[in-house]
C-alpha cells in the first residue's frame, strides 16, 4: 500500500508541475488549469494522509484504502473531464455560429459589391 501511495504522491506532484509549466507557457488558460490543479492537490492530500484515506474507505465500506484512493481519483478526473466536455461543447457551438455568420457577412458584402 505504501508503494502505491508514494507513486500517487509523485504522480500528483508531476501533474501539478506539468499544469503550472503549461500555464506559464500559455498552453493552458488559467481558468482551465484550476480543475487540474484542484485534482492534483486532492490526489496529493489523500496520498499523504493515511487517517483521512482510512476514514473514507470506512465510510465507503471498502476494506482496502488504496481501492478508495483509486475510486476517488477516478471520480475527480471524471468531474474534470465532464467540465472540459461542457467547455468544448460551448466552444464548438460558438465556433459554428461564428463560421456561419462570417460566411453570411461575406456573402452579403459580395452581393453589395456586385450590385454597385
Amino acid at each position: 500500500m505504501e508503494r502505491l501511495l508514494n507513486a500517487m504522491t509523485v504522480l500528483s506532484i508531476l501533474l501539478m508541475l506539468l499544469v503550472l509549466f503549461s500555464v506559464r507557457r500559455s498552453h493552458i488558460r488559467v481558468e482551465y488549469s484550476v480543475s487540474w490543479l484542484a485534482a492534483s492537490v486532492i490526489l496529493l492530500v489523500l496520498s499523504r494522509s493515511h487517517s483521512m484515506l482510512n476514514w473514507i474507505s470506512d465510510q465507503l465500506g471498502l476494506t482496502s484504502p488504496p481501492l478508495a484512493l483509486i475510486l476517488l481519483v477516478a471520480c475527480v478526473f471524471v468531474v474534470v473531464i465532464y467540465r472540459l466536455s461542457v467547455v468544448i461543447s460551448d466552444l464548438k457551438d460558438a465556433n459554428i455560429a461564428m463560421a456561419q455568420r462570417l460566411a453570411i457577412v461575406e456573402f452579403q458584402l459580395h452581393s453589395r459589391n456586385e450590385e454597385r
Partner: protein
Amino acid sequence: MKPSDSVNNFLILIPAFNESGAIADVVREVRQVAPTAPVLVVDDCSTDGTVRQAGSAGAEVLRLPYHLGLGGCVQAGYKLAFQLGYDYVIRVDGDGQHDPRYIPELLKVLQNTGCHMVIGSRFYQNNGVHTSAVRAVGIWIFRLVLRPILGQPVRDPTSGYVGVNREALQVFSGSFPLEYPEIEALVVLQRKRFRFQEVPCRMRPRKAGRSTITAVKSLYYIIHVLLGVFVNILKFEGGQKKE
C-alpha cells in the same frame, strides 16, 4: 438575392460538399423547374470544383470558411434565407438524388396547407425506392420510434428533400441538429407543436460522389440519431444560447 415578390417568395437551398460531378446539373435542373426562384448553394468548404461549377450554372454560393457538416451547412442556408426575408425554403441535395420536378408540389403543399414542413417521401407510394438494406432497416426502426413521439406516422424520416415555411425557418435558425439532422429536426418541430406533411416523390440514384452514410457507419448512425431524438425530447429550451 432578395425575395422578388410575395408570390415567388421562396428559395431553393442546396447544401453541397465535394459535389463537382453533379452540382451543375442539379442547379440547371432546378432552374428549369423553378426559373423565378433564387438558387443558393451552401458550400461546406469543398476541395473540388463545386463552387465554380455551381456559380457557372447560375447559383449564388454561400461559402463556409471550414467544414461544418451537413447540419451546420443547412442551418447556414436557413439563417441567410431567414435574414433575407424568404417565406419558404425548399432544400434539394447536391448529389442529384432529389428530382427537382417535385419542387412545385412541395411548395404548393407548404403554401396551401399551412403546415410548417413538407417532406418529399420516397416511401409514400413506393415511388422508385433507391436505398440500401441496412438503411431500410434503420428507417424501419426510426418509423417505429418516431410514431409515438410525433403523434403521426412518418414514412421517410431520413429524407433530406424538405420544404419549410418562415416559422420553421426561424426555429431552425436558432436550433438545428448538426449531424444527421433530418430526423432530429422533426423532433425539434414537434416540440413547437409544428405540423409536417409528406408528399410522394421519386428519388434517383446519386449522380456522383459517395453517401456520407456508409454500411459501416450505419450502426453508429442509428444509435446516434436515436440518442439525439431522446436528448431533443428532454432538451431544456430556456437555456439556449443567444448568438
